[in-house]
């Protein structure tokens, strides 16, 4: 048994939780700016709160996934990371790039590209951070893909396609791309759509690995069906971005391909519905309570979001829903309902491996999960309602201000339920931070082995060795 160094997982989890808390605060301010237009307008306007919120919550997703992967690769391969110095460098680059990005947004220095609004040169630091992560993970795994479990494929695809799509998102710097609005927008949608898919690959690879370990069943990630679903997901990563571009006047075959690929999601939907009860029963039997609860909620959100995704991929419906808050509802359902629930499940799986949880922490975690999810249902519904009003407004040829006024009550509901989500996730984050603090304290005195409860006092270990 090789002792696992949890230091890097903990460092990345702490960073990720920091991103999430700060991102939630920015989202909360942004949502109140919808309801009260003058709210903090002079101090931190919506053109600052929105990119801050978007950057920080996406950074939460990929940093938490990276922290989990740093733990899992050591556990799978029974050896330390290829380079701990490189992992440190990754952490420092990630932290450094975040400080620069947040400062540049606060000082209103933008490149102004949707989702990557920070100045172009900071992108080089982000790219270097991901390179450090990718090299370390792949050289630790040294994967033999002929026999590899499916999460090796997910992680490799996630790392490689982040690097590809992130670089692609800067093609606008060349006038050949930037001066042609059709090419510019299409390539940006292409890059951003696939980039989201790339960090989803990291998240779902980590989730599958955690499920395999919790169930102690290698078949979870080695059966042919798991690979088949990976390839459906991977195909969607590569080509499904096209459904965002139905409104862009590129060649018609771009839309036709996008539509065909989008409909492959029906295979995933059919499988989820087919194996729903079985999946619920098997999730209920998982040993770790907290990890299990988060997974159960994620299961429900996956179903709801897949239905929404398929619906808005139908061109006749997309014609109405694009540019409305229904798209935002879909994005929020995916990032909070699926990614955040799955990531907290994975985090609790790792930090609860040596349970230090008191009954109080168990109850508080349970309450916080419920508060988050109930608030998210209201949040999601209010965004869908605001979207429907916008569609109605378009059909009636209402002025934009009239539509916004009609949606006001739903924006208020969205801001209030957003506060509920913040409250629920804040509580969860505090529990995670306390657990990491206690675990770090314990690590100073004990060596942890990967088979769970057997620990040796560090002093004894040193005597033995």
């Amino acid at each position, binding site marked *: 048994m090789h002792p696992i160094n949890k230091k890097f997982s903990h460092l990345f989890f702490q960073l990720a939780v920091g991103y999430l808390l700060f991102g939630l605060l920015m989202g909360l301010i942004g949502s109140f*700016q*919808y309801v009260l*237009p*003058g709210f903090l*307008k002079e101090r931190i*306007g*919506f*053109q*600052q709160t*929105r*990119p801050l919120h978007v950057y920080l919550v996406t950074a939460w997703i990929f940093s938490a996934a990276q922290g989990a992967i740093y733990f899992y690769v050591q556990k799978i391969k029974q050896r330390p990371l290829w380079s701990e110095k490189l992992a440190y460098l990754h952490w420092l680059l990630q932290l450094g790039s975040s400080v620069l990005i947040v400062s540049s947004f606060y000082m*209103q220095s*933008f*490149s*102004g*590209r*949707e989702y990557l*609004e920070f100045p172009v040169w900071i992108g080089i630091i982000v790219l270097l951070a991901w390179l450090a992560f990718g090299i370390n993970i792949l050289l630790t795994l040294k994967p033999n*893909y*002929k026999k590899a479990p499916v999460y090796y*494929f997910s992680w490799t*695809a996630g790392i490689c396609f982040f690097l590809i799509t992130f670089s*692609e998102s800067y*093609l606008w710097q060349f*006038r050949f*791309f*930037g*001066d*042609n*609005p*059709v*090419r510019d*927008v*299409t*390539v*940006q*949608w*292409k890059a951003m759509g696939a980039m989201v898919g790339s960090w989803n690959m990291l998240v779902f690879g980590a989730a599958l690995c955690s499920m395999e370990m919790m169930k102690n069943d290698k078949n979870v990630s080695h059966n042919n069906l798991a*690979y088949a679903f990976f*390839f459906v997901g*991977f*195909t969607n990563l*590569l*080509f499904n971005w096209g459904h*965002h*571009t139905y*409104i*862009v*006047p*590129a*060649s018609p*075959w*771009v839309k036709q*391909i996008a539509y065909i690929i989008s409909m492959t999601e029906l295979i995933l939907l059919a499988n989820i519905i087919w194996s729903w009860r079985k999946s619920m029963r098997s999730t209920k039997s998982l040993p770790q309570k907290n990890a299990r609860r988060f997974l159960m909620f994620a299961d429900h959100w996956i179903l709801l979001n897949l239905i929404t995704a398929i619906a808005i991929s139908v061109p006749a419906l997309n014609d109405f829903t*694009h*540019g*409305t*808050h229904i798209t*935002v509802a879909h994005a929020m359902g995916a990032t909070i309902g699926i990614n955040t629930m799955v990531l907290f499940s994975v985090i609790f799986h790792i930090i609860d491996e040596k349970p230090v949880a008191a009954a109080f922490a168990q109850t508080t975690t349970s309450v916080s999960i419920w508060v988050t999810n109930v608030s998210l249902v209201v949040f999601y519904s209010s965004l869908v309602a605001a979207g429907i009003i916008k569609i109605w407004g378009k059909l009636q040829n209402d002025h*934009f201000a009239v539509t916004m006024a009609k949606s006001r009550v739903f924006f208020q509901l969205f801001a209030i339920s957003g506060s509920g989500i913040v409250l629920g996730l804040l509580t969860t984050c505090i529990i995670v931070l306390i657990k990491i603090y206690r675990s770090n304290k314990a690590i100073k005195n004990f060596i942890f082995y990967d088979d769970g409860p057997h620990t040796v006092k560090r002093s004894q270990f040193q005597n033995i060795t």
Partner: protein
Amino acid sequence: MWKVRTALLLVIAYFVYSSFIYTAATEVVLPDETVVAQAHEGKMLFQKYNCAACHQVYGLGGYLGPDLTTVAQKYPNETYIRSLLSTGNQTMPAYHFSDAEKDALIAYFKHLNNYAPHK
């Protein structure tokens, strides 16, 4: 082995498809160089002030303000757009753009509108 082959096949298909997206699929007839240069200047201003936080262009951007893809067609006499660019409103900050900057932004909106499908 089938897994490795399938993955490679998909990656190759992705790169071939990307090359079509970069060229034939998005080919349009651009106006003369002067118009493109002024529109480029406007686009840089649009990005510098992060207008996409509130406004969409072809679906990319926020929802707090109206979609600007066809704004040049909705307000052809430019007066309304020019006054908003100067003074802002309750939600939009007053950016106090110069006349040259307003010209560049309007040129950018016209450039966008030229290719918009919903006219």
